């Protein structure tokens, strides 16, 4: 593997990093969020809030100009397990749990909350999920001026330690959302945006 400080710039010289935001699971009380979040899982809420923070920082950029890449190692695991467990125990299929169980459910909720209508894609790639998301973001800059990446996973309950043991890289991603905004170098000046050093990504790409 190349040194990570050079990794992001190596991925695409035409891309600039504009913003990074994080949201911790402990910061979110689902019962206190606004009504549009009432059917959301914790990862949906964290993703939407984290992406919302980025969008607040770039009010001049039209949302039609922003693509989104969602990265999740294990998807909406709680809803998937909850749907199957509830059915096996009660014989009842709960549609809300299925609706929230798809790997893509997080992205769908986030785009609705943030009103993003550009290209949107969910990526999962084992220990390379973060890196692949950043690479895909840079690929999508070929067709979209801005791309937001959000990484989010939530594993709680008795399986947590087993997931952390099985996937040694996973500690830094669990119960957390982190979002990055990339812009094409040619549009950064147009919107008078400042850029961040790409080395800011290193901690997430290792």
């Amino acid at each position, binding site marked *: 593997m190349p040194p990570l400080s050079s990794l992001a710039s190596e991925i695409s010289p035409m891309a600039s990093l504009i913003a990074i935001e994080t949201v911790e699971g402990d910061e979110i009380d689902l019962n206190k969020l606004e009504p549009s979040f009432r*059917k959301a899982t914790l990862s949906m809420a964290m993703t939407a809030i984290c992406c919302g923070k980025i969008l607040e920082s770039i009010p001049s950029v039209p949302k039609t100009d922003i*693509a989104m890449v969602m990265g*999740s*190692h*294990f*998807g909406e*695991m709680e809803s*998937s*397990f*909850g*749907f*199957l*467990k509830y*059915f*096996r125990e009660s014989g009842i*299929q*709960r*549609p809300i749990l*299925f*609706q*929230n*169980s*798809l*790997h*893509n*459910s997080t*992205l769908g*909720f986030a*785009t*609705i909350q*943030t*009103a*993003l*209508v*550009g*290209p*949107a*894609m*969910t*990526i*999962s*790639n*084992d*220990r*390379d*999920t973060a890196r*692949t998301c950043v*690479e*895909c973001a840079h*690929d*999508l800059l*070929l*067709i979209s001026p801005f791309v937001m990446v959000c990484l989010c996973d939530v594993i709680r309950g*008795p*399986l947590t330690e*087993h*997931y952390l*043991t*099985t*996937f040694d890289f996973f500690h830094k991603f669990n119960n957390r959302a982190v979002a990055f905004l990339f812009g094409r170098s040619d549009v950064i000046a147009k919107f008078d945006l400042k850029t961040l050093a790409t080395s800011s990504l290193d901690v997430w790409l290792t």
Partner: protein
Amino acid sequence: MSFSTTGVRVEVVGLSALCSLGVSKERIFHQALNDHLDPFRNGLFSIAPEEFDVLKTSVPERFRASRFDIMTISAMEAALADAQWDDAKIQDCGFVFATTTGEVDRWESVLPSFPECDLSASELSSCIQSQSLGHPIQELRRHFGMKGRFALVASSCSASLQALALALLWIKSGKVHRCLVGSTEIHSDLTRLGFESLRLISKSKCRPFDVNRDGINLGEGGAFLCLERSSPEERSQKSWGYLEGAGLSSDAFHPTAPQPEGLGSIKAMSQALQMAKVTAEEIDWVYAHGTGSPSNDQAEGCAIQSLFRHRPWITGTKGLHGHMLGASGAIESVLGLMSMRENLILPTYQFETLDPKLELNVADRVLKNSVRAFIKNSLGFGGINAAVVFSRE
């Protein structure tokens, strides 16, 4: 026709498919033209047990524990053989895989009931690895000796076409010279019970765009496409056509229902046409997502009739093989390319009477028709839309 004749083009040089109609693309295509086989049982389109057993014995023993792995390896091998890529080409090629549930058969019966389930530490670890979509595919990459760029797309029913879009961008931007793209989906309790809970399953074979449509049928299968960077003077002897353009969009509307007027789908298809440098009028055939669900077909039909005012033929084939979710775009792209080579347009199976709210030219039988280019469209849960354009020359 103004397809790019200079610069980078992306040629399709290998195909594979397996599903309830057969475990080779030739068998499936034959059934698509003749529609003699009826693999629809208990509301599902499933691969015949005897055919699956043949697949199972053909893969290495360590992969036989998962139906998903067996189908994926079989379909990948068939596509790579069709492309005649040698080991060196396979090692360097990019790989974009699409799935929504992956090895769900290895964990769904046990992990949800943890800690009550009786698992050893190694069994638990193995199940957890399977629950990660990416981990099993990394194992398959190693099995094939693939070391090139890789991504796994999990964007619901649009996943395959998104994977094709990504591969197109990789090849056009020079990141890879060739790329394997495909998808596999298997039946699972999670998807079957889940779609039942949403009351989206039809008890009879689905009827896309028909006034009497009442839901979808689930299917299982896998399909792969081998793509290569091409130039006008280098048309491959084994060419199935060209991947010319792709478009992606999001509805930002509803978790499971498309925007009713198909606005997101219009955007995705428009972008695909734009990248392909063709006008809507140059599209001879629209190979629709066509699930048979009232809301999907309404939204997609609106999008198609809004964009394609010259009324090209419309086809939705899920009444033949079922809805393979993330894999549907891949297998339907394969069928579309095979049809285009033969100048045939596949029918919309079970279609009888057009929904009066739609104005579409739905193909209701196999048609002999010159097809220079077709668009493959898809819509997915989460409001995720994707479309790709293929051309023959």
